[in-house]
């Protein structure tokens, strides 16, 4: 095994967080970035058929166990957060529509989203506040994090299942107010005034 590949292998084994090629090059005493990238690919190829794989998620590399061994390694203890249906839906909406405001999430789901649902996802480190939309009311907008991609084994957002097809079908277009279901005559008030109903918990 080449010295640089060995060093990359050791560094990524020891690292507590995924690292990109630049950080690795710095760590390895200012190695050339392209050499590091070539080395990463060599190590990745070397591990392709092993019990451990070298994977890259949006430019950041880490080792993880091979997915086909999940049945052997799956642990009884709760390592993975159990998400409510509401939380999984909100997560999917943020991932496929990002950046997206809470009102837009609610427009897609047709129900109010409790703040707790967003909190649970932020606490898990999967979504983050990505600023404010330059629109009336300047609503907070949300986006996913690198940890989200890591956790779900996605190389990038383009890797989200079916995202290209959904986009082509226009199902990921921004929801315009005009598209909202118009209220039936006389019903607008009660619709606006019933925020307390069906506030689903995010647990």
């Amino acid at each position, binding site marked *: 095994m080449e010295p640089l590949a060995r060093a990359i292998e050791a560094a990524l084994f020891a690292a507590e967080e995924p690292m990109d090629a630049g950080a690795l090059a710095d760590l390895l005493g200012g190695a050339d970035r392209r050499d590091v990238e070539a080395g990463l690919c060599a190590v990745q190829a070397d591990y392709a058929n092993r019990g451990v794989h070298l994977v890259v998620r949006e430019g950041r590399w880490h080792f993880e*166990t091979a997915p086909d061994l999940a049945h052997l390694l799956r642990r009884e203890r709760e390592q993975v957060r159990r*998400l409510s*249906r509401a939380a999984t839906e909100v*997560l999917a909406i943020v991932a*496929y529509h990002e950046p997206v405001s809470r009102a837009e999430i609610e427009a897609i789901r047709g129900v109010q989203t409790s703040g707790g649902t967003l909190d649970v996802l932020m606490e898990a480190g999967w979504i983050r506040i990505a600023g404010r939309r330059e629109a009336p009311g300047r609503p907070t907008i949300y986006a996913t994090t690198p940890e989200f991609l890591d956790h*779900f*084994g996605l190389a990038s957002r383009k890797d989200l*299942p*079916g995202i290209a097809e959904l986009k082509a079908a226009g*199902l990921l277009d921004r929801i315009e107010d005009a598209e909202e279901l118009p209220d039936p005559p006389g019903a607008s008030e009660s619709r606006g005034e019933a925020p307390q109903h069906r506030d689903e918990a995010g647990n």
Partner: protein
Amino acid sequence: MSETGLFPAQADTVEDDWEGIAAPARQDDAALYLALDGWEGPLDLLLDLARRQKVDLRAISILALVDQYLRYIERAEALKLELAADYLVMAAWLAYLKSALLLPREEQEEPSAEELALRLQIRLARLGAMREAAARLMARDRIGRDVFLRGAPEGLAIATRTRWRSDQFALIEAYGRVRARTAPVVHMVRERPVMTLDSALNRVSAMLGVALDWMELVEFLPPHADPQLRRSALASSFVAALELARLGKAELAQESVFGPLLLRRVA
């Protein structure tokens, strides 16, 4: 509720659109209410009904969907169930949509009923897409469940160590600075040119001895003295003049206030 399931458990068991909900109601109304509670709002219920048409969401019959929904709501009302307001709002809107769809096209208002139906369909498709996406996402190989990171990574430590630098001159200079700063303070009063009272007495009495007439006090001062010495000599000579007058050796005269002070020997 299953983590990955597309639908709430009770929805999966529903065979027919009404019996599914009515089944628990045979026991009591509270259970029925809970069953209805399995849907997250009217859009969720509509989506579930639409899926039961077992066709692509884009091909569903909106009229049939509206009828199904309205039947649910009617039955729930007949059972005196407490329905959340938004279910009733949706029912009212769907009833309106249905009547508009049944009207001849030319009598419809803007936007047309067909367009409203299309929007409803798009909303259902969008929610359906996200629900499927969520399920596919949750089914992926997830870290900590299906794949695992290194259990005990050694960690990469980058410790920053400061190496301090200084030199001999800086050291010695610093000590000089400290000592200079804290050296005991000595007050030195610089010598100033003065004429003492004694020398003024000698000078004035000597000059008076040779003078014939009244002399101004300033004429007794050293002629080319610097201003500081002159001030001192003026003060001393004035005191000397007073002293000579007291001893009866001289007399003083001043013709006006602040006028020249005149001095003459007492014969």
